[in-house]
């Protein structure tokens, strides 16, 4: 399925029952250079909207909220040595964690690409 976005600028891409979550191009531009990412441990149960990761830029720490509930299957361990992947490739190598969805209906309220693009445009 295609990628969906939250209004907190996280994206989620679902294959089967597992969603991969990261932050959008817009979000990484706003944060600036990322220098540390605190990713969740596999096995952690997370609720929709819960803060599950922290992305630290030079300037500030930003909470990452999961757009869907479930159980974490993997945190992106490569970000420990390459936090800049979030800037360089936010939708690819810069993914943050994977979650096995417990409630696929969580995705219904999220934006598709066109809606998210319009949302970002509205922010100026």
């Amino acid at each position, binding site marked *: 399925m295609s990628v969906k976005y939250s209004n907190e600028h996280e994206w989620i891409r679902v294959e089967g029952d597992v969603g991969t979550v990261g932050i959008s191009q817009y979000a990484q531009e706003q944060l600036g*250079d990322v*220098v*540390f990412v605190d990713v969740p441990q596999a096995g952690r149960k997370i609720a929709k909207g819960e803060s599950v990761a922290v992305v*630290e830029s030079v*300037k500030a*720490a930003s909470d990452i909220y999961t757009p869907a509930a479930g159980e974490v299957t993997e945190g992106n361990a490569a970000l420990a040595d390459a936090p800049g992947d979030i*800037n360089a490739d936010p939708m690819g190598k810069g993914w943050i964690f994977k979650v096995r969805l417990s409630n696929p209906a969580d995705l219904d309220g999220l934006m598709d690409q066109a809606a998210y693009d319009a949302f970002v445009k509205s922010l100026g």
Partner: protein
Amino acid sequence: MSEPTVGPLKRTPLHALHQELGARLVPFAGYEMPVQYPTGILAEHAQTRTSAGLFDVSHMGQIRLTGKAGQSAARALETLVPGDIAGLQPGQQRYTQFTNEAGGILDDLMVTSTGDHLLVVVNAACKDDDLAHIRKHLSASCEIEPMFARGLLALQGPLAAQALARLVPSVATMKFMTGAFVTIDGAQCYVTRSGYTGGDGYEISTPADRADPIARLLLAQPEVKPIGLGARDSLRLEAGLCLYGHDIDITTTPIEAVLLWSIGKERRVQGGFPGASVIRKQIAEGAARKRVGLLPEGKAIAREGAEIAVGGRIVGKVTSGGFAPTLGRAVAMGYVEKVQSANGTKVELVVRGKPVPAEIVPMPFVKHAYYRG
């Protein structure tokens, strides 16, 4: 880096240039200021440590003090600061603080003597209060001229001297913490060999309407790129330098902040500045707490406000913390109880509720590289 403000934001003379350069502009101390340019803070930080960076610091307050007939501006200013100002030779610059009666710090500032007057540079967020403070206490003895419209450019980094000397050869031999009038691009400017990055460099005070062309001329030098407030903060943190409103404020004394070095030796004995009794007592007996450097283990970043604990007991707070790009790791500074302040002391920094092991270390985190001739 941004803070709430009331009313429309002010602009420096370089506002149009920042926009042209693609800066991200944020509110800072009532001004619309560049936090970074498109290359980003890490690249800007590295540029300043390895080559040269140009910072717009025109939001800072420049004030000229001239002694009235039969009066010394330096002696007058010494009634407000603990620094040795009367001892400044023409062309010499010092760092000092405005103190209050409790020994707290109202602001920190740079003072340069030109021989016939003093040039003072204060923090942007404090400049209106500082000016009122100076007027209240020094109007009888000094002509007080705020020059808040002037440009102030900081050119910092190991190749700053090479770049500026191409335009003004005489700056090459200037020593750290000295100043001189020079002509740049036909405009009379006042240059000091100083800055707030811990590296070599200059601050250049320009007429308001010449700040933009002079900045463009400096940016046309191959060594120089524009640098925003984001990297200014990471650079000064690595250098262990205090940021007013964070590491020092009215609740901290210069002794607690480990700024004793900036207090004149005679003045320690003679006093004559606000809060002298408190500060002299702390010099003699030690202060109850002290500003220290902190090196957290691992990669977590302890930022301003994080608690500092020893064995589960809170002994202080982080006042500045962040990623130090030169070191590729997090660093912090904060205040701890004097008894816990020895270098090598193991502490924990509480980051998002979790204790992160850290050690008290000497500052600066990155060695200063001032030009002393």
